[in-house]
């Protein structure tokens, strides 16, 4: 049975975010396949933007599980990146955190729906959020900021600032129907962020974003974190993650396969570059001799070495293997980066 908790500021039980006025939190809900989800209940929990999920499982309809026992705990003010290839369950997990989907089983504990000041605690930008097409981006964003509990003037200030930062100011007063997909995506981010939620949940926020805007968004999210706002970001792209995230959780086939602080994860793969050598032909006894700084990690298939000098050692490795009687088919260079963490945990490529 799925157990949900939305905790108010005193840690009392609250209703789930979806379709409840100030409801009981006990109503049945339906997933996208129309299945009746287990009744929602709540248990005592935290009063702020923290999130806790335990053994969360979810499948769309009668399909394979998309989430298969996810556990996570996100502290107040943390910035968490969920990283994984397409189909790993990132977006589904975010939709559960946003109250858009109910888990089939497991427990999810989320912040209260509103703060005592009437502010909506969640800001969510998923894929393809609907807008009021005939209105301007500015009018759309102001509406959601006000729905989130802001007064008009406050909403105008917050939206103007975000439009400037995310490069949408010039198009702000044009109808959304004229927007490109990229502009719509930025508007969605503005709508999720403007009311300064305690928990911000963003799915692929850096998609198709120029470097300058990307850096500005990272600054906004880091600032939110400094103000005790919790941020959860899903990304298939690792480039912005080290600068953004306090912690990374790698998802693969619906499970968290690795996680930790960026420095810890990098340390776990060491500083050496790995070379994965595919051999077309190898002698019975492969006895290649390498200089110091090159260590054989595995002499199976692929033949794996760690080198301290990066890809510069490729030529030397190939020469040594050839001298030992092997024929090299290909060499893959694996830098000691976050992608390598995922690769070692799963044996699969991130992208």
């Amino acid at each position: 049975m799925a157990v949900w908790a939305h905790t108010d500021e005193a840690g009392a039980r609250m209703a789930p975010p979806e379709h409840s006025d100030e409801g009981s939190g006990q109503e049945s809900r339906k997933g996208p396949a129309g299945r009746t989800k287990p009744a929602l209940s709540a248990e005592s929990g935290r009063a702020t933007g923290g999130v806790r999920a335990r053994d969360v499982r979810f499948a769309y309809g009668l399909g394979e599980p998309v989430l298969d026992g996810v556990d996570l705990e996100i502290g107040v003010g943390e910035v968490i990146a969920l990283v994984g290839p397409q189909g790993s369950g990132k977006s589904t997990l975010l939709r559960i955190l946003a109250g858009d989907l109910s888990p089939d089983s497991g427990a999810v504990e989320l912040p209260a729906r509103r703060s005592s000041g009437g502010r909506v605690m969640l800001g969510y930008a998923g894929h393809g959020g609907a807008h009021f097409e005939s209105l301007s981006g500015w009018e759309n964003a102001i509406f959601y900021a006000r729905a989130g509990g802001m007064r008009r003037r406050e909403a105008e200030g917050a939206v103007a600032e975000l439009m400037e930062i995310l490069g949408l100011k010039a198009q702000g007063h044009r109808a959304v129907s004229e927007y490109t997909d990229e502009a719509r995506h930025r508007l969605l981010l503005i709508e999720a962020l403007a009311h300064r939620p305690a928990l911000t949940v963003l799915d692929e926020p850096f998609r198709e974003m120029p470097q300058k805007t990307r850096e500005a968004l990272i600054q906004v999210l880091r600032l939110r974190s400094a103000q005790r706002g919790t941020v959860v970001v899903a990304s298939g792209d690792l480039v912005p993650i080290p600068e953004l995230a306090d912690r990374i959780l790698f998802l693969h086939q619906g499970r968290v396969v690795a996680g930790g602080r960026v420095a810890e994860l990098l340390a776990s793969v060491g500083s050496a570059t790995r070379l994965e050598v595919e051999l077309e032909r190898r002698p019975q006894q492969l006895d290649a001799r390498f200089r110091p700084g090159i260590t054989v990690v595995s002499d199976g298939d692929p033949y794996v070495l760690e080198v301290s000098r990066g890809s510069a050692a490729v030529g030397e490795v190939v020469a040594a293997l050839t001298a030992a009687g092997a024929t090299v088919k290909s060499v893959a260079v694996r830098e000691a980066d976050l992608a390598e963490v995922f690769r070692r945990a799963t044996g699969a490529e991130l992208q």
Partner: protein
Amino acid sequence: MGVIVWGLEWRLALSRKRDLTLRIVAPLSLVLVVATGAVPAAVGAASYVVLFVAFGVLGTALRLLRDGEEGITSRVVRGGVSPKSYLLQRAAVGAVLAFVQLLPAALVAAAFLNASTSEVLIALVALAGSLWIGSLLGIVVAAVGRSGTEVTVVCGVGLVLLLHMSGVFHAASPAGLGGMLEAASPFRALHEAFVTMVAGGAERGGLAAAAWALALPVLVGSLAPRLTAAMER
């Protein structure tokens, strides 16, 4: 937060100028066709009631259906607007908008029926009340129907029954249970307002319409979370 949905819906309506114009021109054209035709005045009056009520119910129902399908409803509700506030504000905007759009048609209909000023004023009050009731019924229809076709069918069948109950298709009020149902029906006041223009007599049905106009918002408000959830496709 107040009535932000009210303001938003007005901006949306005003931004769709073509839609706005069509919704004024279409009922006006239909009324003109009936008014200038050779139908008996009583039949004309009944036609106007059917047209106005269907316009009110379908206007709200189809817009809500579209917003549910596009994910607008779920976004707005998750964005912080309570389902109750959302639906009641939508009903209010829908009713006022329909009233403004139907006003030229209603005035033309009254003019062709040679109505007095007081009869016109009573008819407009009855029209406003009926559109409010119709808009609230449109919310329920939007939650029940799963497509534009379904909404139209549900609306058509439901309205025929309600309008029949309201005496629109009767020459004289029935006795017994039929008469009681007619007395309690939501659109009798509107029908009576137009019948009075044709045949004179006292306008009736106002009390029942008022009761519906007060009771339906309570019902829709209490069911609002379920209704908005049902609108998600």
